[in-house]
Structure formats: structure tokens, C-alpha cells
């Protein structure tokens, strides 16, 4: 565990509070964020959802794409988030779940990144902040919410793993390469993105399709593929910047 991640407790954090609506600040240099399958129905309405490979393991990860290169978040302008929906991963910040190393019972701990710009260590004085605890040392709503979000994220991760396993077995992933010509006639070739190949679905037998349907995977796949329409929007956002420059 990093030394900045500390288990949340009343003794140390009685005066701590979370600053509201600071997601843009935190995310302005992120060009993607992990998404769980249980979040797809909402995020697919707002962001392109694509698969990338983890550079450590080569395993697929589902992400919402915010920009075309590292450090570029086209949804974030002047520290304002220009999209109606904020993915759970950003909402959960600065809280994290840590797991005990104990093999037999994997206990979960709610931790806080004390270096996050989203916390105020002296919350009582700050009107906009939500304190971690109330005067009686009981968890305030913000901690309950954080725990809920983190549980949803953990569940999402598990769902992703199961989906990836099935999609790999059926060989559904395909690589997506984007050849983009910007307004200034410069070109970019974006590699390393993957999608689910809809034409592969047509080659599956009834049994396989039935399995995909009953897991809700067919719906997910449609939502994922629908979300790719937002790529065009993302290109537009970047073109706007280029033209102005």
C-alpha cells in the first residue's frame, strides 16, 4: 500500500472533509478511466468505451476515452467537466478499498489518499466540504456513498473479468485503428484500441448466442458499440482546439 493511502478512522480524520465537484481538477490530465460492465449502460451514453491492454499484463481493460494521447482530456476545459456524467472511478476519488494480505479472510478497508486535492484536512472551517464523520464519530453520508461506489466498482471489475473470459473464448475482440486527419491536415494513427467485433456474433451457434443473451452480454455489446459514436465527438472537440490554436 502506498504511504499516502491511510485507513479512514475517526481519530485521525475527525476534521477531514471532501470537496465537492472537483473531479475536473483531478482528471484533467487523464485520457482514459476504467469502466465496469455495470456502469456501461450509463457511460455509453456519454463517452466512447473501448478496450485497451494493460501494459503490465497485456490483459484487456474497459475504459472510457477522454483524449487521443496520454495527458489529454478533451472533456475538461478550464477545470470544468464538460459532460453530464462523471464515471464512478472519478466519483470515488479520494477513497479506495484496500484488502488485507490475509489469505483466509480478505477483509476490506476503506482508505483515503491524504494527498488528494479533493480533501480538506480542516473541513469544519470549509463550507463546501462534507466532513467524513459527524460530531458523534459516526460516518457521514460521504463515507457511506464512497463505500457504495467502491463496492460497485469492485463488482464491476469482477463482471469485466467474466465478460473478458467469455469474449476471449469466442474470439470476439478485434483491434481498432483510427486514422484521423485533423483540421490542420496533420494525421494521427491511433493504435492499441480494441472493440467487440459484431460480425463475429453472426458466426456463433445458437447455444453460444443463448449464453451471451442470458448473461446480458449481447446488450452490453450493443451498448459498447453504440458508444463508439462518441469518438466522432471527441475528434470534433480536439479539432476545435486545433483550429483555435
Amino acid at each position, binding site marked *: 500500500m502506498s504511504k499516502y493511502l491511510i485507513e479512514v478512522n475517526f481519530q485521525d480524520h475527525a476534521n477531514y472533509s471532501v470537496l465537492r465537484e472537483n473531479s475536473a481538477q483531478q482528471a484533467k490530465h487523464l485520457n482514459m478511466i476504467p469502466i465496469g460492465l455495470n456502469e456501461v449502460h450509463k457511460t455509453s451514453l456519454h463517452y466512447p468505451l473501448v478496450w485497451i*491492454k*494493460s*501494459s*503490465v*499484463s*497485456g*490483459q*484487456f481493460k474497459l475504459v472510457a476515452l477522454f483524449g487521443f494521447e496520454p495527458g489529454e482530456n478533451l472533456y475538461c476545459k478550464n477545470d470544468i467537466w464538460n459532460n453530464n456524467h462523471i464515471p464512478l472511478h472519478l466519483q470515488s476519488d479520494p477513497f479506495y478499498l484496500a484488502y488485507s494480505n490475509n489469505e483466509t479472510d480478505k477483509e476490506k478497508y476503506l482508505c483515503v489518499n491524504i494527498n488528494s486535492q479533493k480533501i480538506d484536512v480542516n473541513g469544519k472551517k470549509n463550507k463546501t466540504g462534507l466532513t467524513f464523520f459527524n460530531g458523534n464519530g459516526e460516518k457521514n453520508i460521504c463515507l457511506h456513498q464512497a463505500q457504495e461506489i467502491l463496492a460497485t466498482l469492485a463488482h464491476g471489475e469482477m463482471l469485466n473479468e467474466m465478460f473478458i473470459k467469455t469474449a*476471449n473464448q469466442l*474470439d470476439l*475482440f*478485434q*483491434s481498432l485503428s483510427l486514422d484521423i486527419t485533423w483540421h490542420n491536415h496533420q494525421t494521427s494513427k491511433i493504435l*492499441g484500441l*480494441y472493440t467487440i467485433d459484431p460480425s463475429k456474433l453472426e458466426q456463433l451457434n445458437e447455444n453460444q448466442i443463448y449464453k451471451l443473451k442470458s448473461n446480458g452480454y449481447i446488450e452490453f455489446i450493443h451498448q459498447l458499440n453504440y458508444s463508439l459514436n462518441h469518438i466522432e465527438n471527441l475528434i470534433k472537440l480536439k479539432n476545435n482546439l486545433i483550429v483555435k490554436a
Partner: protein
Amino acid sequence: MNKPTKSVVIVGGGTAGWLIAGRIAAQHNSKDSNNLQVTLIESAKISPVNVGEGTWPTMRNTLKKMGVSETEFIQQCCVSFKQGAKFARWLDGSVDDFYYHPLVLPQSYSNINLAPYWQTDSEQSNSSFSNSVCFQEQLCEQGLAPKLITTAEYVGVANYAYHLDSAKFANFLKKHCTDKLGVKHIVDDVLSVNSHENADISSLVTSKNGNISADLFVDCSGFSAILIGKHYKTPFNDKSDVLFVNQALAVQLPNQKNNDEIASHTISTAQDAGWIWDIGLPTRRGIGYVYSDNHQSEAQAIERLAVYVGPNFSESNLKKIPIKAGHRKIFWQNNCVAVGLASGFLEPLEASSLVLVEMSADMIAEQLPACRQTMDIIAKRFNQTFNYRWKRIIDFLKLHYILSKRTEDFWLDNRNPKTIPDSLQELMELWKYHSPYDHDFNSSNEVFPAASYQYILYGMGFKTDIEYQKSSLNQQTFAQQQFVANKAITIKACEVLPKNRDLLNKIYKYGFQHV
């Protein structure tokens, strides 16, 4: 005569037999009992040679066509990556004498022949040919892998082949062929042959399974060559007057530690009467000395190997394999075709044995005679094609020897013009004034690209006299750009690629994706 080809029987369960079985069965969808049926018979008494640990990049495509997962293959066959060969002490025998034959073609190879520009470019003159035109030598020198864990299976950042455990590979293929491709497996000894009137084989007489008949028989019985040799007695084209190596001594050394670095190239170190191969696998190193017993006694040869291996050498696990350089003049006789060691063998200098198996498998699987009527036509074509390929390989292997400046008898004899094939002498004459390029090798059946000849020639210090063609060298600027580009690619590749061992560990844990 126009009996359709409905069944193939393969004799031999070494790597040759299973590669042939797998390629044919995959191509013809033999799982379906209405289609061509493939059966493999192997003896439990005669074990496969179980050497042959270096492949060509072609193996990637061969496995892919058989529907093999690269991850499973790497996990189960003790595989490591091979990015070419390092030839040490071939030129003059000194300690720092080495050059590389990498698998990546020279930079921009299809657009320009960089060899003459490399020779005239003063800036390149202190860099080896391979380093000037290709980034792979540096990957090998630094023990780096040819790809990343995020690279899809069978795809490379740099072109690559494999080093593998041959016994595990044969077992892996056996399982894949029988479980997934519908190949029937019979463990039995083939004792003799029954013939039709036209001298075709009608069936094989086995010791436990009676007579086994088929329309086509593939002889993969190794050095015993029971069908093509013992039965048909087709003549052997002896090449021991060109390639002198006729004995092999092989040992296996367990790795000291689990995290020992693994070289991602074959190391071939010249000795006074032959050369030593050194192949690193994740769990062991395979080392062997191939030498000429006309130039060195066995005791001396063992001594050379012992010195190379060092304190871990033990004579108790030494394997001795006599080898005979040469090949059948006719590979396909009647309804029988020989593949693998049964068809011939040359010293394993450029790992040409398994690649010939793959090429044979391709041709047999893709051009399988539809019926007996067309078989002789395909057979004739097969014999022509493979006679050509063996000839090319013999020339290419001999090329490694003739530019040496070593002075031991073995090396002097190798440079005796009487031992150099006319076809190679002619090329050498040409290359005195012209750098090798694709126009020198224009058959569709080539084995080595002209680039390989360049790597050997210029690696061995050969000079082409380009004085007469200087006026035609009008791509100086473009050539210059390629040298610069290669330098940049070299730096970049060394930066992003992981250590060979680290990538293998990741493959054990995570595997590659299909895309």
C-alpha cells in the same frame, strides 16, 4: 487409376510426423469423418531423436494454421524466443570475432539494397553491417524479447522464431492433433510393406494392428527411413564432400537459477573441427558440438565440448548422434513421400531441417493429389521443388565456411575449391562486383532471402568491389536516411522491449491475446 485420395498414413511420431499430420488434418478438416482421414503410426521402441531446438519464423504461421494457441505452445514446450544466430570465432578464431545473422530484413529492404552504400559510407564503416542496417543485433546483445506482452499472439515487434524442447513439442503436437484435429494415433511397429502391382504401397504390416492401408504414405521415420530408404531404396545424394560435419555430441544443462537471463538467439561458436551450438531455454541450455571425425577424434571433440561447457560438464549425459550430410534424390516415390530426417539431413547450422518439414507440410497439405491420377504430377513437382531447396541450403551453409581465415585443416579443407559447389562459386564470382540482392534468387521456391547472404558475407568481412557500379549508386540521400532511421529504431526498440526472461514470465502468468 483415378481413385480419390481419402486417407493418409504417416509413419513416425517425431516433430516431423506430427507437423505433417497437423497441417494436413487442419487443412482438410479431418475431424469430419467424411473428409480425408489422417493416421499416424509410431513405434514405442524407437524414440524420436529429440534434438532440434531451433526453428525458423515460419513456425509461427505453421502453428497458427494448425489452430495452436501461441500462449499454450510457449507454456507447454519450454519455449523461448529466437531472433537469429550469433556466429562467434568463425572468421579468425579470436575472442572478439563475431557477427550476427538476424531475422529482421535490412531497413527498407524492398526499396533499396543498402549493402553497397554501407560499404562506401565512411560513417558506417566502423559499425557492423548488421548493426548499420538492422536493429535486431542490439536486441540480442541486450537479451531483449522481440515483442511485448501487449503484442498479439504470433505478431512480433521484431521478426522472431523459437527455441523449444523438441520432446515436449512432439507431445504437445500429438495432443493437439488427436484432441482437436481428428488425427488417429496408433502406437505400433511397422515391420514391412505390401505393394500394389504398380509398386505403390497398398498397406503397412504392423506387429499388433495387422495391415494398415492408405492412399498416401508419409515416411517420417527419422534416420531409419523405412519406406523411402529400406523399402524403395531411392538413391541418396551424399553431400559429405561439401559439408564435412558428420558427428554430433549433445548435452543439456539445467539453468542455475530461475531468473537466469536467456539469450534470444542461437550462439554458434566455431571450433577447430566444427562448431558448437548453444540454445537457451527457460529451464535449461542445450549445447552440442557438431564436428568432422575425419579431422578430429571423438576424445578430442569431447574435450572441446567440455571446455566450452565448463565445470558443469559431465560425460554421463552426453548423447552421440552420427549424421550423414545429404538427402534423397527422390523424396516422393509412387504414393510415398519422405519428410524430416527420413528425407535427409544437413548440419543444423541454420536450423534448416524443421523449416523443410514445414515447407513439405505446406505443399502436401495444400496440393494434396485429389486422386491417384494426379499424384505422379504432384510428386514430380515436389521432387523438383525440394531438390532445388536442398541445393540452395547446401550452398548457403557452405558459404559460412568459405570466407573463414581459420587455419586448421578442417577450415582449410572447407575452402578447397573442389569442395565448393559450382553454383556457389558462380555466386561468389558475381558478388565480387555486385552486392547480393533479390534478383540473384528469383525462384518462387527460395529458402533464404538475399538478405541472409548479405548478413553472412559482410559479417564475415567480405568486400564487394563496387568501383565499376559506382555511377549507378544514385540513392545516397535515401540510403543515408535509412541508416539514420535504423539508429533511431534501434534506440527506441531497446527502450520499449522487455528482457526475454521477463516476457516469458509474463506469458506464463497472463498469456498473449489473439488480437
